[in-house]
């Protein structure tokens, strides 16, 4: 994991200084597409380890893990998006996110295929998806083009809310 944090470090320090306000996004790969999450919400990145399943929970909830004494639920993002399931491998990582909701902070982990990069995205640059009102569009904050390819920015609060 040290490699990953190095990437983050260098990118953060080389943040653009040309007067444009930017937000930083950590991106990761899932079945060929690149997704981004607000880097300020990322608490840590760790390797996959097995979780304790929760009875009668939705399928995409892989269970809970012990994160230094805190019980943290883990979501499989592929299953959350109804993508094909894959075997967890060496590159499979868990991005632990901490988000602020009305009910206080909430810590959750998402399983992704692999970590990609950190980008500076000018504020307001994200385009609306215009995908209509399907289940997945709720989780998407917008699309942004970085180095000529598309990055999907995720709306974490919706993504990490588990309805009853």
């Amino acid at each position: 994991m040290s490699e990953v944090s190095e990437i983050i470090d260098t990118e953060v320090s080389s943040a653009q200084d040309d007067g444009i306000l930017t937000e930083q996004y950590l991106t990761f790969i899932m079945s060929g597409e690149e997704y981004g999450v607000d880097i300020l919400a990322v608490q840590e990145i760790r390797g996959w380890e097995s979780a304790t399943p929760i009875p009668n929970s939705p399928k995409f909830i892989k269970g809970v893990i012990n994160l230094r004494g805190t019980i943290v639920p883990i979501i499989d993002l592929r299953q959350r998006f109804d993508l094909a399931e894959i075997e967890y491998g060496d590159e499979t990582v868990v991005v632990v996110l901490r988000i602020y909701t009305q009910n206080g902070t909430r810590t959750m982990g998402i399983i992704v295929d692999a970590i990609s990069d950190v980008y500076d995205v000018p504020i307001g640059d994200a385009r609306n998806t215009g995908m209509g009102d399907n289940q997945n569009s709720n989780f998407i904050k917008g699309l942004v083009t970085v180095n000529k390819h598309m990055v999907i920015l995720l709306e974490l609060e919706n993504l990490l809310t588990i309805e009853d």
Partner: protein
Amino acid sequence: MSIDLSQFHQVFYEESYEGLDAMEQGLLDLDLVDPDAEVINTIFRAAHSMKGGAGTFGFTHVAEFTHVLETLLDQIRSGQRAMSQGIQNLLLTSVDCIRGLMQGLQSGAEADLTDAHDLKQQFEAILSNETPADVSDETIDTNQTSVEEETGGSGWHIRFIPELTLLQTGNEPVRMFRQLADACDGQMKISVDTTRLPVFTSMDPEMCYLVWEVQVDKAIDRSVIDEIFEWVIDDAEIIITPLGESSVIKEVVEPVPQAIQPKEEKTLSKPVEKEKPSTKQPAKTQESSSIRVSIDKVDSLINMVGELVITQSMLGQLGQNFDITRVQRLQEGLAQLEHNTRELQESVMKIRMMPISFVFSRFPRLVRDVSISLDKKINLEMSGENTELDKTVMEKIGDPMVHLIRNSIDHGIEMPADRIAAGKAETGTVKLDAYHQSGNIVIEIKDDGAGLNTDRILQKAIENGLVAEGANLSQEQIFDLIFQPGFSTADVVSDLSGRGVGMDVVRRNIAALNGSIEVSSERGKGSRFVIRLPLTLAILDGQLVQVGKEIYIFPLVSIVESIQLDDLSINNVGGHSDVLQLRDEYVPIVHLDDIFNIANEKRPIEESIIVVVETDGEKIGVVVDELLGQQQVVIKSLEENYKRVDGISGATILGDGTVALIVDISSLTKMSGASSKIIDGSHKAA
């Protein structure tokens, strides 16, 4: 430079709440016939410092209100006015009122002064009604006096008898007289009474031997005078009487030498009384998010951390150049580490422990209020107030206890006349007791009232369909019915009602704390409720069980027994639900892997283990694969980052770092559908 006073507001509120609690407790303890001077002093001091604080912070409405209260208290304190039930009630209501004002201030809401205003008028009525002090047996028309008393009619007569040490406290009588002169535009006469002066040789120049008589010839407000003398009321005897009847002055003036003597005795004896240690500590019932920890507990923690550090460095050294010959030292070190850790854990847990008096302290008031409103005579006895229990448990046990105590008074204790007719003492007794028993805290609520009426309960339960007609229930089973959710309905018989109202809620609240409640009762002798609670909510004695690949934890308290089936005592009811015949009972069976959707290969039930658990008086048998060890587990919240899960009360971390879920037995029972079952006596092959 101005100081931002608001930073002290919180401290003021906390002190005031403590003061109010002290006042309340003092008032309740007060013997109306022979009031203890120390108790009255405590009450007075609390009111006095609250008034001072409120004035300092500019909370004028609180200050004004406490002022009238204080005036009345001062008269009682100095023996000028006798304590009465009416005054006690009024003072208690004003404690509530001040508490309300404080809460208003704290929340920054607009103060609602209607209550305060009403009470203030009542106080003023009392204060003006009987002119205090030596004005003996004067029956004056009340209307007239109240007007006169406010403004003093044509003026006031003030007799100012300072203590000898007045000057040493930095007070200057002349300055006060000047203020008084300003207040009445100079229309006053002052005369000095020198009878206290000793012979010149034995005179101490620092003592104030003089006594003044002041006659104010202008109708000014009594409160103006009070304010001027406010700082010296503790150091002087001040007798203020309205002018009008000239005889009043005479009466007061004449017996000067005699009048002073007894008063001095009184004031002198006060400090002696003050030194008596007060038996009741002012307890605060407020549920704050911070706790006060005694310094001993902190010190012992620091000691233990010190030991832990030593052990750690010892182990560290051992690890640096370790070879197999030193394995024994390593083992010793590890044993010591374990010892240290356990002690540390215990002490950390102790920090959360607080004496149960925090809950108990609110009951005297409750008992008093309820018994007055019901016209019953009740004596509340409390013991074991120092028993400690976890703060969280304590916060949640208050309401169920209030309910039980109310029930005891309302429905347990009979009316005084009935009690006498039954050959009992007129005053009923409600006893509260708390003690530790094998890792639990036990709270008992006992009354010597009428006891539970088993016939009535049974009849009611049959009417409500909880019990089949003609069922043969044991006494315990009948008592248990009062905790059934459906037991209390609208048309409950009056003398029985309430014994069932909300009792299911009481039991549920207690069960939510992993506790239990039992009742025993004897007709005509009284009833006894026993609540058992775990000492802490943070740690649970758990039984680890395995289902498939998963490990779950059952709270040990709810396990009745665990059995391995060897013969065919399983019966099938209606196709899919199984029941187990357990001696004289039929117990529904739940497969944990089914109910929790755990991937598990089916194995014959004879190879499984059935854990029989009990909650709310209902038993279910839970089928699991294996029983693992028993251990204490630290409860972690699952809701914090996820949400509530049916059948699970929390999670914990096992020795290997993995997470195991703790089974919530009552929720599991509901999920299994077993709770819809009607208790039917004929099911029990008794």
